């Protein structure tokens, strides 16, 4: 078994190396001196207090969507719809805050109710994808993808329609809320420790849920073999629905935090790709919650650092996305190659009874 672990690590390191080589090639082809570019990315990410704060600000929604996706992945569901679930969460939060902002309720309560509304909104949107899957036989990938488009359309409609900023409706979103309805932030920054704390709490909770609870174990059983899980007494479709609901709730929380903690209004691209990035993180860590937090951190650091490329070398900042996707693809490819060339552990070693049978013969 020990040997296998080293071989696995070898393949993963190989995948990383190839990813680095390819990105170096891309940088060179784009006319940026690769090593200076890497250095400027590193400096861009960790070179100043401001950039570290920026990383922490984006870390929190990514942690939340990753946590959600880990749950649905464990249940064997490809919940592509996280992006939309996050968007609907933001819509619900905004709606609740618009409703309550002129009442005499204390601001803290309004913020809490807004966040709760966001959680419920995300969960409902996910439940829709879940119901389509469980009762309608619609594959969750198609359901999620479709609902993503609907969520985007709904956001745009609200931003330019009923909730339009008085006078000038624009892509910059609805009219920002009063300052008292903002989540408190560290002085001089937009970093909300509340948002960060909630996200870290969420990923820790998901880690515990998947590792140490009956719910998590049953969820994994459903994900790995629904037939056997059913025969062992697990109500399978209910667990699938639960997984959707929980994932949606976390995505909704991410959306809510974007509204109350960072943007303070609803804007068309409020989910900002965190849903899809969460899927990438979950795939890269092979659905192990323990690694999700550092990898998510690394991903947002790449995002932040790559802004420097734009400034220094006039490269598009989407370069970070290229690097992230390459990493995921190549790590998955490395895993495929390992299975193909080494076979599974089972074939490598004959079972005891097989050995015994041979001796008898």
């Amino acid at each position, binding site marked *: 078994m020990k040997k296998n672990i080293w071989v696995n690590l070898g393949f993963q390191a190989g995948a990383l190396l190839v990813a680095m080589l390819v990105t170096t090639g891309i940088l060179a082809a784009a006319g940026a001196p690769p090593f200076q570019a890497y250095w400027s990315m590193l400096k861009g990410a960790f070179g100043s207090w401001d950039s570290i704060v920026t990383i922490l600000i984006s870390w929190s929604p990514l942690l939340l969507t990753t946590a959600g996706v880990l749950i649905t992945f464990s249940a064997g569901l490809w919940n592509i719809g996280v992006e939309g679930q996050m968007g609907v969460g933001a819509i619900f939060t905004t709606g609740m805050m618009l409703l309550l902002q002129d009442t005499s309720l204390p601001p803290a309560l309004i913020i809490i109710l807004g966040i709760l509304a966001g959680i419920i909104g995300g969960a409902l949107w996910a439940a829709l994808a879940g119901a389509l899957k469980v009762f309608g036989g619609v594959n969750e990938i198609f359901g999620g993808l479709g609902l993503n488009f609907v969520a985007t359309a709904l956001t745009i409609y609200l931003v330019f329609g009923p909730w339009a900023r008085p006078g000038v409706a624009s892509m910059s979103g609805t009219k920002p809320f009063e300052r008292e309805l903002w989540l408190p932030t560290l002085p001089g920054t937009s970093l909300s420790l509340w948002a960060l704390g909630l996200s870290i709490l969420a990923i820790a909770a998901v880690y515990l849920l998947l590792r140490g609870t009956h719910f998590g174990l049953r969820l994994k059983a459903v994900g790995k073999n629904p037939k*056997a899980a059913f*025969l*062992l007494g697990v109500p399978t479709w209910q667990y699938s629905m639960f997984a959707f609901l929980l994932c949606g709730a976390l995505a909704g929380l991410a959306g809510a935090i974007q509204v109350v903690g960072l943007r303070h209004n609803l804007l068309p691209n409020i989910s900002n790709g965190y849903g899809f990035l969460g899927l990438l993180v979950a795939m890269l860590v092979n659905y192990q919650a323990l690694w999700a937090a550092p990898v998510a951190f690394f991903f947002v650091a790449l995002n932040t650092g790559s802004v420097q490329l734009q400034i220094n070398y006039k490269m598009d900042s989407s370069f970070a996305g290229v690097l992230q996707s390459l990493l995921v693809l190549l790590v998955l490819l490395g895993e495929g190659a390992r299975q193909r060339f080494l076979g599974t552990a*089972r074939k490598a070693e004959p079972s005891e*009874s*097989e050995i015994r049978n041979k001796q008898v013969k």
Partner: protein
Amino acid sequence: MDVELRDIYKTFGAVRANVGITLRVPAGTIQGILGENGAGKSTLMKILSGFMRADSGGIILDGRPVSIHSPADAIRCGVGMLHQDPLDFPPMRVIDNFILGRKGGLLPGQAEAARDFKRLAEQFGFSLNPDSYVDALTVGERQQLEILRLLWLGARALIFDEPTTGISAAQKEKLFAALRLLAEQGKTILFVSHKLEDVEGLCHRVAVLRQGYLVGEAQPPYTTKNLVEMMFGKSISAGERNPCAGGGSTLILDNLSVEDYRLKVRDVSLDVCRGEVIGLAGMEGSGQGLFLRAVSGMVRTVGGRILAGGKDLTGKSYHAFKRNGVAFLPAARLEEGLVSGLNLTEHFVLSEPPDGFFINWEQGGALARERIAGFNVKGTPASTVESLSGGNQQRALLALLRDPLALLLLEHPTRGLDIESTIYIWSKLKERCKQGTSIIFMSSDLDEILQYSDRVLVFFSGRVTPPLDASMLKTDKLGQLIGGKGWDEFTTGKSA
């Protein structure tokens, strides 16, 4: 076309599916291939039709050795196979299915194909509407479509795998007429079946396979006894019985009916007493699997009642059955019984009702160690189930069962296991019986049926015998029933 298989060998791991099989079939012959499940019939036919490659041996068509690597190669050489489950495309039209597989340019010659289709269909008296969709057809009609398609592609030797399963009597007549016509035209027909009557009535010659060997050939007039003996071998001794200990019934079936798309099992009544073992015999797909899943609550019944553990469970879900002490162990251990990727401890934790929100891993590990020792599983609590051998997977499945159980339903409890594991599994099962659990199991191994059952139900094409006393049952009688012979004595009353 003359078809010759020469010295065919094929092994799957330790299983020897075909051992030096040599068979010559001259053109214009309807050749029956007879044998019980796992005898190697399908493997041999799949080798001939290109779905598998033999480890060694050759195929000679019209005196010329050919190498067949794929079904496409086979049809190019003139060999086509009709599978038991038709390999067609239900959401597409008949004519599209017909054209599919034909080599041609970008635009298939629709008009020409339609003309050929009509001509061929008329020749055999098949009435198929080329524009209807395949999922609206019966199994028999889908077979007809497949025959026409293969002929159009130039098949001169046709393999039929259990073609009379799931089709009506009228369609069977039509099929047989078509087969005779094909033989007259000089085509070679290989007819794979376990139905003695069909084989005896249709085939010009019969080859019998058993455990991978070609054990004999026969020509008309056939004697059923001789065929059965070749199929199943000589009779075996019976094991010890658990006579009904009294103490009431664990399962009462009252005129139970269940059906799927091709089989109907009708009006089965059965009263199983505590500690009794009921064996279900029959060729694969004769209705015993459907019956077993209906009794476990996994398949909805269409009529009658199921009472288990004193409760009427008719129409209830599998989980309701499970709560009332009914357990089901599937034959596909890794596909349906165990969760690959989870270890034994995780399985034992899963199988017990949850005791709170968090898992007590220490307690789970202790449970796992205890059961692993108790059932002699070769593995550790941290072993993933897919790393276990088949016999140990089956032991693990048995170890996962909750206590107490009223009724235990098993599909092929010892399929693929070595003798040691088989004996061990049955000793554990018999232990359960002593505690009052009744067992119903299906098996294609007649020895197993006769050795461990108290009573036996035989299935044939959805028909069921009344419960037969296993101690009075002889192998040849059982073999005949499985092959569809000797059912007349049951037709006076209701079946079972």
